[in-house]
C-alpha cells in the first residue's frame, strides 16, 4: 500500500525533526540527520514511482485533527507524480547537504526545520480534504520561513523573511477563501464531497481566480513574485534548491488539483488569464534575471520564468479543453507536466552548483568570480549541463518540454474566441523570446562565474567541492541528459495523469520506431533525441579524425592575443553588468526605465570616473509601493485608537452593537 508507506515516511520525517532538536543541543547532528532524510526520501520516491507506474490509487481517513471530521489522505496518479518529484528533490538536497552542511555554523537552526519542510510538502500532496491541505500548506510555509531566517544576522535576510511571511499568509488566505467557496453552504470540506457538487458560473470563476492568486503567489507568478528573489537566495543553498525546484511544484500541484480536478469544466477566459500571467512571468522573470549580479538571484528569477512557461502550458490546456479540442488539450497538459519534472531537476542542479561555488569561494557576487573552470572542473561540467538544459538546447531535457509546448501551440486548431485567436500567437512569440533570453542569461552566468580570469583572490584560490556533493551534481546532470535523449518513457509515465484529468492520453511513445517522440503523428512532427545525440557524436568523431589526418598537430601556449593589446589586469575583461548592457539597452529602457549616467571628474582631479546604472522595479512601484503606502497611512490614522478615553472605548462597543442589531433587523 503506497499510501500507508508514504504516511509512515512523513511520520519518520517528523520523528527525525524531534530527534534533531533534542540531539542538536549537544553535538553536530548534520551527518546522521541528512543520511536519515536521504534514506526516507529515496524510499518515498520509490514508493511514489511504483504507485505511478502501476496506476494505483487509494484513500485513507485517520482520526487526527478535528473531531468528527478527521484527516483524509489520498494517493492517485497525480499525487504520485508530484510525490516522486518532491522526494527525489529531497533526496538530492539531503545528500548534497551531507557535504555542504559542513560549512554551516549553526546546524541546529536548519536540521529540524529541514525535516519538517520535507514532511509538510509530502503532506500537502497527500491531503484529501481542505483542512489537512491548508494545515500542511501553512506548515510548509512556516518551515521554509524558519529556514530563510536561518542566518538572521544579516538584515537583508530579515527583510526577505518579512516579505516572505506576508506573501505566504496572503496566499493561504486566498486558498482559504477558495476552499470556502468550494465547500459551499453544505460545509463539506473533503475533496470527494467537493467533486460531487461542483460550483458553476460566477462562483467557479471566483474560485479559479482565488486559486490562481493563492497557488500562484507560492509558485512565483508575476505580479505575486516579489518574495521569491528575496527569500530563495537567503536560505542555504540546498534549501534554496528545495524551495525553487520543489516547493514551487507543490504550488502547481495545488493549482492543478483545485482547477483541473475539483472545479468543473473550464471556461475559455480562464485560459486567457493563465496565458497572460504565464507570458508576463516568462518575459519579466528572465529580463530581471539578466540584470542581477548575485548568482542565486539570477537562478530565482529564472525560476519565475520557468513557472511562467508551465502556466502557459496549463493555460493552453484549459483553453483547448473549454473549446472541446481534447487532443490539443492533452498535448498541452503533458507538455506542462513534463516541464514541471524537467525544471525540478535542472533548477535543483543549478542551485546545488551555486552552493558548491559559495562553499568554495564564500562569494555569491558574479563580479568577484571567474576562472573557476580551472579550479573546480567537475562542478563546472555539471553546471554547464544545467545551463544547457535550462536554455532549452538539445540533447538535454529542457528542449523536449519546450518543443512539446510549441507543438501544442501549432496544433491549436480553429479557436472561436477572438481573445484566444490574438492571444495564442502573441504568447507563442513571448515564449520564444523568453527561451532566447534564457540562453543569454545562462551564457552570462556560466561565462562570468566559471570562464575568463578570476576577478578576486577568493576565486583564484577556490578548491573543488567534496565527492559527495559532486556525486549529486553528476547524478542530476545525468538525469537531465537521459530524459532529454529518451523522453518517451517519461511521457508514457505521464499518460495516466492526463487520463485521470482529461480522460485521454498521448499516443504510447515507447512503441514508436527508434524511440522517437511523436506527439501527434509522424507526418506532423517527430523528434529523436537518441539519433540526434548519436549523429552529433559521429560528426564530432569524423571531424576529429579528419583533423588528425589532415592538419598539423602542434599546439603552443602563449599569452592571449587580444588583438595586439594584451592586458594582464583582470579588470579589463567583461563583467556581468557589461555583458547584459546591450540587452539592457534594448529591453530595459522601456520596461525597467534603465538609465545610465557617467560622471567624469574634471582634468587634474584624481578621483575615478563613475558609471551608474539605475533600474526601477516596475512591479514593485506599480503594485506594492502604493499598497504599502496605503497600509502605512491607514495604520497611522488608526493609531489614534490606542489612546482613547474609557468613555470613547465604551461608545465604540455600543456603536458596533447597535450596527449589528440593525443588520439583523433589516437582513432579508
Amino acid at each position, binding site marked *: 500500500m503506497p499510501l500507508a508507506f508514504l504516511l509512515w515516511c512523513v511520520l519518520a520525517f517528523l520523528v527525525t525533526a524531534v530527534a534533531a532538536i533534542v540531539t542538536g543541543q549537544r553535538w553536530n547532528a548534520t551527518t546522521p540527520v541528512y543520511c536519515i532524510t536521504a534514506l526516507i526520501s529515496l524510499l518515498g520516491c520509490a514508493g511514489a514511482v511504483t504507485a505511478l507506474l502501476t496506476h494505483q490509487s487509494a484513500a485513507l481517513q485517520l482520526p487526527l485533527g478535528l473531531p468528527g471530521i478527521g484527516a483524509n489522505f489520498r494517493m492517485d496518479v497525480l499525487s504520485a507524480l508530484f510525490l516522486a518529484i518532491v522526494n527525489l528533490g529531497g533526496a538530492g538536497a539531503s545528500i548534497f547537504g551531507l557535504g555542504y552542511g559542513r560549512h554551516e555554523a549553526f546546524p541546529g537552526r536548519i536540521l529540524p526545520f529541514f525535516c519538517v519542510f520535507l514532511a509538510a510538502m509530502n503532506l500537502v500532496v497527500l491531503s484529501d480534504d481542505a483542512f489537512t491541505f491548508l494545515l500542511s500548506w501553512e506548515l510548509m510555509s512556516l518551515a521554509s520561513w524558519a529556514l530563510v531566517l536561518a542566518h538572521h544576522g544579516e538584515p537583508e535576510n530579515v527583510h526577505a523573511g518579512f516579505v516572505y511571511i506576508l506573501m505566504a499568509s496572503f496566499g493561504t488566505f486566498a486558498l482559504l477563501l477558495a476552499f470556502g467557496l468550494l465547500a459551499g453552504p453544505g460545509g463539506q470540506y473533503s475533496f470527494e464531497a467537493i467533486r460531487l457538487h461542483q460550483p458553476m458560473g460566477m462562483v467557479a470563476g471566483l474560485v479559479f481566480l482565488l486559486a490562481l492568486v493563492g497557488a500562484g503567489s507560492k509558485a512565483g507568478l508575476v505580479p505575486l513574485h516579489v518574495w521569491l528573489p528575496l527569500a530563495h537566495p537567503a536560505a542555504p543553498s540546498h534549501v534554496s534548491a528545495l524551495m525553487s525546484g520543489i516547493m514551487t511544484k507543490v504550488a502547481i500541484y495545488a493549482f492543478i488539483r483545485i482547477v483541473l480536478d475539483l472545479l468543473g469544466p473550464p471556461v475559455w477566459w480562464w485560459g486567457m488569464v493563465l496565458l497572460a500571467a504565464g507570458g508576463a512571468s516568462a518575459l519579466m522573470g528572465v529580463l530581471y534575471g539578466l540584470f542581477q549580479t548575485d548568482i542565486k538571484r539570477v537562478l530565482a528569477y529564472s525560476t519565475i520564468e520557468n513557472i511562467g512557461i508551465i502556466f502557459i502550458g496549463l493555460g493552453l490546456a484549459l483553453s483547448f479543453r473549454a473549446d472541446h479540442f481534447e487532443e490539443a488539450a492533452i498535448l498541452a497538459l503533458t507538455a506542462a507536466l513534463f516541464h514541471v519534472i524537467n525544471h525540478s531537476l535542472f533548477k535543483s542542479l543549478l542551485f546545488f552548483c551555486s552552493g558548491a561555488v559559495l562553499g568554495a569561494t564564500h562569494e555569491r557576487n558574479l563580479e568577484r568570480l571567474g576562472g573557476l573552470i580551472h579550479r573546480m572542473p567537475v562542478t563546472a561540467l555539471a553546471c554547464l549541463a544545467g545551463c544547457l538544459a535550462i536554455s532549452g538546447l538539445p540533447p538535454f531535457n529542457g528542449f523536449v518540454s519546450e518543443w512539446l509546448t510549441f507543438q501544442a501551440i501549432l496544433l491549436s486548431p480553429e479557436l472561436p474566441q*477572438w481573445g484566444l*485567436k*490574438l492571444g495564442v500567437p502573441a504568447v507563442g512569440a513571448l515564449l520564444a523570446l523568453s527561451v532566447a533570453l534564457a540562453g543569454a542569461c545562462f551564457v552570462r552566468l556560466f561565462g562570468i562565474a566559471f570562464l575568463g580570469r578570476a576577478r578576486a583572490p577568493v576565486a583564484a584560490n577556490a578548491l573543488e567541492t567534496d565527492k559527495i556533493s559532486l556525486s549529486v551534481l553528476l547524478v542530476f546532470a545525468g538525469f537531465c541528459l537521459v530524459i532529454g535523449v529518451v523522453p518517451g518513457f517519461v511521457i508514457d509515465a505521464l499518460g495516466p495523469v492526463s487520463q485521470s484529468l482529461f480522460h485521454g492520453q498521448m499516443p504510447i511513445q515507447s512503441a514508436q520506431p527508434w524511440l522517437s517522440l511523436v506527439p501527434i503523428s509522424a507526418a506532423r512532427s517527430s523528434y529523436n533525441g537518441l539519433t540526434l545525440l548519436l549523429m552529433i557524436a559521429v560528426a564530432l568523431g569524423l571531424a576529429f579524425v579528419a583533423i588528425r589526418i589532415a592538419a598539423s598537430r602542434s599546439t603552443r601556449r602563449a599569452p592571449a592575443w587580444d588583438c595586439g593589446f594584451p592586458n594582464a589586469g583582470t579588470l579589463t575583461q567583461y563583467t556581468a553588468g557589461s555583458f547584459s548592457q546591450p540587452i539592457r539597452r*534594448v529591453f530595459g*529602457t*522601456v520596461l525597467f526605465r534603465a538609465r545610465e549616467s557617467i560622471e567624469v571628474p574634471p582634468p587634474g582631479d584624481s578621483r575615478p570616473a563613475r558609471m551608474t546604472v539605475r533600474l526601477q522595479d516596475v512591479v514593485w512601484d506599480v503594485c506594492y509601493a502604493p499598497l504599502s503606502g496605503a497600509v502605512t497611512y491607514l495604520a497611522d490614522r488608526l493609531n489614534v485608537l490606542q489612546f482613547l478615553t474609557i468613555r470613547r472605548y465604551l461608545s465604540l462597543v455600543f456603536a458596533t452593537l447597535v450596527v449589528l442589531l440593525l443588520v439583523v433587523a433589516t437582513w432579508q
Partner: protein
Amino acid sequence: MHGFAFDVAHLLAGSLVLVSFMLLYQDRLYALLNVFALHAVVLSLSVAWQAHIQDAPHLYITAVIAIGFKAIIIPVALHRMIVLLGIHREVETTASIGLTMLIGLGLVGLSMAVMLRITPHADLVAREDLAFALSVLLLGLLIMVTRRNAVSQIIGFMSLENGLVLAATGARGMPLVVEISVAFSVLIAFIVIGVFLFRIRERFDTVDIAAMDQFRGDRQ
C-alpha cells in the same frame, strides 16, 4: 472564386500594410520620402489590378493620379523643400521605433478583429482586404501621432489617405472614386503648401516675396 486574380489583389493589399510598417521603421527623412514613393507605387499597382479584374477602366485614372502625384511630384517637391529650408534630416519620434512598431502590430490585430467581426456574411478575401485597408489607415494615424517633424506628419496623412483609396477601390462598384481621389490630391497639395508657408514665415519672419528676395545667394 479564390482564383489567381483575387490572390494577387490580396497580396498587393498585404504589401501595402508591409510598406506602412516600413514607413514606421525609417529614421531618416530622405529614406522616409523614398519609402512613401514606394507606398504610392504599390497603391497604384493595386488600383490598376482592381481596374483589371473589376473591368472598371475609370480606376486606371486613379492609378495614374496615384503614381504621378504621390509617387513622383510630392516626394520631389518635399525633397526640394527640405533642402531649401534646411529642415533637420532625422525623424524625431516620441517613442522608440521598436515600441511604435509593436503598437502598430496591435493596431493591425485590432483592425482584423473589428473588420472580421462586423462583416460575417461576406467573402473572406474581401473582408481581409477591408481589414488591411483599415490597418493602413490606423498606421498612417500612428505615424502622425508619434512623429514631431512636420514632413513626417504629412507623410502619415498621405499614407492614411492611401488606405482610404485602397478601401474604396476594393469595394466593387463604389461611385465617384476618381473624383474623390482628385479631391484628396488637391487637399494634400494645399496642406503641403500651407505647412511650408508657415515654416517659411518662421524661418524668415515673412512670406513677402519681395522681402525674401534679399536672401538670394547671388545678390551682393
